[in-house]
């Protein structure tokens, strides 16, 4: 059973639709105990959590407590292994899947794309979320064999959060990458430089409102040269490359 408590915080209309349709599973005492322990240690910093029984655990914490919670997770709960850190942009892409062929869109019953930016609230995933961005990181306890994903909401206006480099030295590069890809500021990071992108690159590529230009200027090959499937009565091959650049 995916137990998702209504957190201390009022989760806005955008609470995950995903929590209900998980099939019934046995309770997961190990992960429930982890949640209880963390809640006892950091108090109301824990906003919400989600357990997929026998598999995995998600905990959403307040943004201000991000580094403190990580500190507790590492030193008190023993998750000394740093997996990764990254972010999610929950805004649906304003380009829709403009970059796809009309065929794909009709299969997905997708409306024609627009370019308008949808204001929130956005539909979010496990353990809910209130803001457009979410920073998430994964830690593991290699002695007791469990792992968990911590999440924290980061707003659209001032996308910043405390750095984890003082807790896990390995967070350095991950934060640099997240910084350049999402434009999220990691307060206290010793050198928030570009990691991959060239110095004169403009924009934050992994945000949903960053267009994938290569796909917009050149139609996906599947659109123009689709041959009908042998023996198939399918609807492919209308041959017209409807590019969705508005």
């Amino acid at each position, binding site marked *: 059973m995916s137990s998702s408590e209504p957190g201390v915080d009022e989760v806005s209309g955008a609470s995950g639709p*995903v929590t209900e349709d998980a099939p019934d599973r046995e309770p997961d005492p190990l992960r429930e105990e982890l949640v209880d322990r963390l809640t006892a240690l950091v108090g109301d910093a824990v906003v919400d959590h989600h357990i997929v029984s026998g598999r995995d655990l998600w905990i959403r914490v307040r943004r201000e407590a991000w580094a403190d919670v990580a500190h507790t997770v590492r030193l008190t709960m023993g998750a000394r292994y740093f997996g990764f850190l990254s972010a999610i942009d929950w805004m649906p892409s304003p380009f829709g899947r403009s970059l796809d062929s009309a065929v794909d869109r009709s299969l997905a019953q997708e409306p024609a794309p627009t370019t308008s930016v949808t204001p929130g609230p956005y539909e979010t995933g496990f353990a809910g979320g209130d803001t457009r961005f979410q920073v998430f990181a994964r830690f593991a306890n*290699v002695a007791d*064999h469990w*792992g968990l994903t911590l999440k924290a909401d980061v707003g659209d206006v001032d996308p910043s959060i405390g750095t984890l480099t003082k807790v896990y030295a390995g967070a350095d590069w991950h934060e640099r990458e997240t910084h350049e890809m999402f434009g999220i500021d990691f307060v206290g990071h010793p050198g928030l430089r570009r990691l991959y*992108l*060239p110095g004169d690159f403009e924009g934050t590529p992994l945000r949903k409102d960053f267009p994938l230009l290569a796909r917009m200027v050149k139609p996906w090959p599947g659109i123009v040269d689709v041959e009908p499937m042998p023996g198939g009565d399918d609807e492919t091959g209308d041959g017209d490359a409807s590019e969705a650049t508005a």
Partner: protein
Amino acid sequence: MTMIGDRQKLQYIAAAAADARVNVELETEGMTLNIGPQHPATHGTLRIVARLDGEQVVSADPVMGYMHRGYEKLTEVRSYPQVTTLINRIDWLGSFANEVPFILAAEQLMEVEAPERARWIRTILFELSRIANITLFLGDMAVQLGAFTAVFYAFRDREYVLNLIESVTGGRFHPYFDRIGGLKDDLPKGWIDETRSAMVKMRAFCDEMEELVMNSEIFEARTRGVGVIPPDVALQYGLSGANARSSGIDWDIRRDHNVGLAYDEVDWKVWTHPDGDSFARFWVRLQETREATKIVDQLCAGLPKGPIMAKVPRIIKVPAGEAYVATENPLGEMGYYLVSKGDLYPFRVKIRTASFNNVSIVPWLLRGVYVPDIITILASLYFILGDIDR
């Protein structure tokens, strides 16, 4: 073994301290050494800017992105089956292993399970990718230390494994063989016997490497006590795979967090080494290659019969949800954090690659080492550029 290691480590530290004193007394000037982006030791295009004081590194800063292909963005405009083609190219030496965690993550969200036989064949191919990948490391490490012979042996014997992979999947490097719900095809006729004899050859190759490289006095002198990573530092940087295990961390996802592969069905062992130096990393990988051949042998012997594909819809839509599935790839933990919104396309895929974390320790590790040891350390960490840059 450990005793020799300790003595050599102490000698190394004493020599480094003596040099530092000389440098201070002579006020040697700093110098910037640019290694790469086209240095053979970087297996691609990684550049390391090292500030030197005499023969020692003061600070080292890796510069990457020369091969950044933006896979995380590209996955957002590809359907699930199409993503497999892309991610094949992350760690190009162990490409089948790249597909597996992604497929498993998608299967987890879809609540689909591959049939027994498919799981076993996946595991066999997974281990074959490991052997093909690590084989090259074993030869390449020797090249970086100046011994050329070993790498020709490695290239020669890797062919046995690549031929096996090719005869099943049709591709030597980019199989694109794993499907949501199972596999594309079953094994060809006679493949099991061929695999058995190839595994015998690979074990002979491991023995050869042990004699030729590892037991060589020069090799030991160049690697013992060089690039020591203490376990706690390794964990903080998220080192995984053989790099972590050679620091004495007993952690293997195949055994400790196995998802969907057939490792529980066979009898095998996780190798660790307490020293954490370059020698230990070579030693652990050598043992792991041997162990992998044994895993393949056992899986081939007990391969269950049955279908290789579960029932999945023709058009694959993954229900909304999030999943993180990681596997123990040749280079270490590789995982996909998959976010789906119930669409044909992933909403977000975070690709956690082993080499990214493994190389992020380089600035810490290279501080204070001698210039020739830079190459030893980089070679022993063993990374693939595509696995860093993604």
